[in-house]
């Protein structure tokens, strides 16, 4: 077995001088998010959502800033963020396609849908197009089994898909700016 090593303690994260949590953002979180939670741990999920919404994903520097803002440790923040695949710890495209791969959708033809989208965009599952426009992922049950197979494009659910129909939906205009950051953006 190959010997894989990782220098976790000595790793450098990418940093930029401009903070991800601007003063305006913090002020907004202070008035809109913090009062709703008893503990700062409780405020973590919505804060992560809001920061991801702002920047499209959650760079490590942003996680450190969130930790600082909520008086948590950076490890606690990434622990939570890495639990949910809807939080993006690596950059993703401007728009996100999430095809449901759970059992109902799979039986109703999901594999073909994924294949069709892969062919149309020229990328594999988990990849982003070269122009940075699209990212394709497969997710577990979206809670819409009755209309399987389904997929989410940004925040819009597309139901009763066929491969051809799925590809066509990609041409629809994104709804509002909010949706341009994908799942739960």
């Amino acid at each position: 077995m190959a010997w894989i090593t990782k220098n976790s303690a000595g790793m450098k994260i990418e940093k930029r001088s401009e903070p991800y949590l601007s003063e305006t953002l913090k002020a907004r979180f202070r008035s809109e998010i913090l009062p709703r939670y008893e503990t700062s741990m409780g405020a973590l999920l919505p804060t992560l959502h809001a920061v991801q919404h702002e920047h499209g994903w959650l760079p490590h520097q942003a996680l450190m800033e969130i930790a600082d803002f909520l008086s948590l440790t950076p490890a606690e923040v990434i622990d939570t963020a890495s639990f949910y695949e809807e939080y993006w710890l690596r950059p993703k495209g401007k728009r996100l396609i999430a095809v449901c791969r759970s059992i109902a959708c799979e039986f109703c033809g999901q594999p073909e849908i994924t294949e069709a989208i892969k062919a149309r965009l020229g990328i594999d599952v988990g990849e982003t197009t070269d122009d940075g426009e699209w990212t394709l992922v497969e997710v577990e049950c979206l809670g819409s089994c009755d209309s399987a197979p389904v997929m989410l494009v940004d925040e819009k659910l597309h139901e009763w898909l066929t491969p051809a129909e799925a590809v066509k939906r990609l041409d629809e205009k994104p709804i509002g700016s909010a949706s341009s950051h994908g799942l739960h953006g």
Partner: protein
Amino acid sequence: MSSPTPTITINGVRRPFSPGQTILQVANAAGVEVPQYCYHDGLSVVASCRICLCEVWSPNPRTGALEPFMGGKLVPSCQQTASDGMVVHTDSPKAVANQKAVMEYLLINHPLDCPVCDQSGECFLQDYSYQYGRGVSRFQEEKVKQPKKDLGNHVLLYSDRCIMCTRCVRFTREVTGTGELMVMGRGNKEEIDVFPGIPINNELSGNVIDLCPVGALLDKDFLFQQRVWYLKETPSIDPITASGDNIWIHHNEGKIHRVKPRENPRVNKWWITDEVRYGWKFVHSADRLGAPARKQYGYPAQSDFPRAYEIAVAGLRRAVEDGGRVALLASPMIACEEAYLLAQVVREIDREAVLAVGPVPVKGSDRVYPPGASEDDPRAFKVHAEKAPNARGVRRVLEALAGPGQVLDFEAFLRAMGKGTGSSGVRAALVTGNYPSAWTTPELLGCLGGKFIVAIDTLAGPHVDAADISLPAATFAEKSGTFENARGMIQSFERALTAFEGARPEGQIAFDLLHLIACGGEYERAGATRPEVYDAADIRSRMAAEHETLGVFASAVGHPAPRPQARPDMRLVEI
């Protein structure tokens, strides 16, 4: 019907318990083995590893008839509080089936690398695999491969061996409050890690290595040093700070290989600082003194004990004959018993000898973990700024001899010594050290000049070179004794190693000197009888008998708890 003391029945035997205890705690206290990974007395309960599940029946409150508890589901014994009349099975077919399933599940992605794993021999996974697992694996797919990670100054993580019990994560969140460790990801991809670039370097970091039930968290210092089954363990006490932390010295063939915390709920709980954990290196320092020396033409020349003792006694005596005083600087690093004997040496020569306690190093200020906790919190752990194990004990003993208020601290000692014969007419001094690192100060050197000096120490240093006679002493690991910690608890420690070649414990040196003095100071004459052999327990009873104020040494010494007899898990065959 409930009995006066509530009881539960575990595997057919009734066990009393105190309300609030979990089933697992009752079993552990009674010595009934229930397999457990994620549970730890010092951490919160998460009941996540599932190996401790047991079958529980409880009496129906109305009819008293036994019924399956929780509808007959297996219950995590680490989380379920015991209630009177419960009947618990950890060896029923259902419970055993679960143990086997959990073991098989944990071993799916676990490498079979016990032959090269440091934990091998003290690994819960290995032991339970042997006792509760099956001999073969049905898993034919690819194992998940995870990296070996560098997590900090002392800690390595072989992630592929981790069973995700999260003890380590809970430790950094609940005990140190520093929260460096985390679970990254989810499901079969989850792994323990630190935030990139933020290492686990808190001053208690080494404890995560002890906590880890498997060989995932490893000690860089101990890595590949020794197979654990070669190690012998000796109970001891933190020798370099005033904490009185209980420790195990793990050693083999005369060498210490590591120090581990020894559980004591009244002192260090389950933990020790990294300072104490790695603070034993001076025992094997290349600078250890290995032979007595005497000053010749201004330079130390190697000597032997008989000669050195003779010169020492003669020199001390001459100081008194010349109308001077003799002083003892008893270091706070030596045992109470030794301070007692050394004080007797100088008082044998000079009834009015000056008794002083050596310098007590202090570094920074006391700290309590988790930050913000009160010191008296049963979960709190205190790190002591005072870097000497026995300042109080040495003072207590000297005061019993010289009278309260008559014992000098180091500053007062320096003043009393002064230059030349000093303010109190001191012409000779017995100076002991045994510090883990250099401790001579220019002030000390200055006031030793012009006097007859006998230095008893472990490591070389300028004051040893300057002494008329130097005698090589033994470190804490090479003798027994007692230390009194910052909270006034007197605790005994045992000898782990034979004394460094050529060195003797201060207590033995004191006995040798006392014997020589009793024989008129001539080694030839002394040769016919033998000096007493230093034995800390004997001296403690003597101290208590001779001085009322030292009665605590008979009544209030904390001794290491007797070890539960390890029983072999194989049948012994007579040959």
